[in-house]
C-alpha cells in the first residue's frame, strides 16, 4: 500500500468537519423563499384606515418598495418599528400587511408609535400572508418597480440588516431600468 493512502481517512474527516463547522453558523429557521423572482401574489384587500378602500397588487408597483408583514401580537415587530420609521423617513416606500390582527389594536399601535406605511392592508384572515409564504412575523419583502419580489427578510430589520442587505439591495434595484 502506498503511503499517501493513509491520509484518506484524515482528508474525509476534514471535509466532514468543514461541512459541520459551516452548519454551526447557519440559521436553520431561515427558509429559502420560492417567491423570489415571482410577482407579488394577487389580492383584493381593504386597508387598516379605510375598510372600503380596496387595494390590489397593482397599487403597490411602480417603484422599489418594501412590503412589511406586521401585527400587534408580534413582539419583535415592536422592536423593528423604529427602524421602519427611519427607513420611511429616508424615502423608501413601505407598505404594511397587517397580518391576522384586530383593526382597533393596529390603529392604536400606529397612533402611538407612528405610521411608517403608505397604507397597511388589513389581512384579517391571513390569506395574503399565506400566499406570501409568511411563517413568522415580522417578514419583509423588497419588490422592484415591476412588482416582482426580489428579496425577503424573515425577522426583524435592524441596523445591521439595513446596512448589509437592505440598503445595497434597494440601491441595486433602483439602478435597474
Amino acid at each position, binding site marked *: 500500500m502506498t503511503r499517501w493512502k493513509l491520509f484518506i481517512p484524515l482528508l474525509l474527516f476534514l471535509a466532514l468537519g468543514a461541512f459541520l463547522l459551516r452548519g454551526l453558523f447557519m440559521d436553520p429557521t431561515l*427558509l429559502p423563499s420560492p417567491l423570489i423572482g415571482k410577482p407579488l401574489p394577487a389580492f383584493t384587500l381593504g386597508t387598516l384606515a379605510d375598510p372600503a378602500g380596496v387595494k390590489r397588487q397593482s397599487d403597490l408597483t411602480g417603484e422599489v418598495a418594501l412590503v412589511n408583514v406586521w401585527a400587534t401580537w408580534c413582539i419583535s415587530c415592536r422592536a423593528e418599528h423604529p427602524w421602519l420609521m427611519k427607513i420611511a423617513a429616508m424615502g423608501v416606500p413601505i407598505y404594511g400587511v397587517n397580518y391576522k390582527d384586530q383593526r382597533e389594536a393596529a390603529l392604536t399601535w400606529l397612533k402611538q408609535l407612528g405610521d411608517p406605511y403608505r397604507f397597511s392592508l388589513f389581512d384579517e384572515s391571513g390569506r395574503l400572508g399565506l400566499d406570501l409564504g409568511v411563517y413568522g412575523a415580522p417578514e419583509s419583502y423588497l419588490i422592484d418597480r415591476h412588482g416582482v419580489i426580489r428579496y425577503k427578510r424573515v425577522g426583524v430589520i435592524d441596523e445591521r440588516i439595513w446596512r448589509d442587505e437592505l440598503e445595497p439591495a434597494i440601491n441595486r434595484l433602483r439602478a435597474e431600468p
Partner: protein
Amino acid sequence: MSAALTRWLLLGTLLLTTTLGAVEPDYQFDQPEQSQRFHRLLDQFRCPKCQNTNLVGSDAPIAADLRQHIYQLMNEGRSDREIEEYLVERYGEFVLYKPRAQGSNWLLWLAPAMLLLGGLGYVALLIARRRPQATPATGLSSDERARLDQLLKRQEPPG
C-alpha cells in the same frame, strides 16, 4: 401493582395521548376515505414554523391555517399533487418530508445506493486482489514440502 391495573393504566395513557395528538375536531368529512386522505396529507407536510413536526403534530398558528387550507382545497376537489404544489409554491420544498426526485435532489436519492455500490466494489476488489497471493502459499512444490517435513521433524521434542 397488579398486572391488570398496569394494563388499564397503560391503556388509559394511550387513549389520552391519542386525543391530545388529534387534529382540531372541526374538520368533518362525509366519507371515512376522505378523512384518511386528509390525515395522510397532513402527515406528509412539514410545519414551516416549528421545523421538526408535521402539520398534524404542530400547535403553531401557521400549522392550523395550513390544515384549514388543505381542508378547503380538498373540498374544492383538488388532487394531492395540486395541494402539494400549492404548499411548495408558497413555502418551498422545505415543507415536503419526501424530497422530489428532480434536480440536485437526485444526489440525495442516489447517494445511499452509490455508497453501497462503491463499498461493495471496494470489497470485491480486495477479495480479487487477495486470491492470487493466497494460492502460491498453499501450493508447495515437492522439494519445498520435503524440506518442510524435515524442519518439522527436527522441531519435534525427542522421545
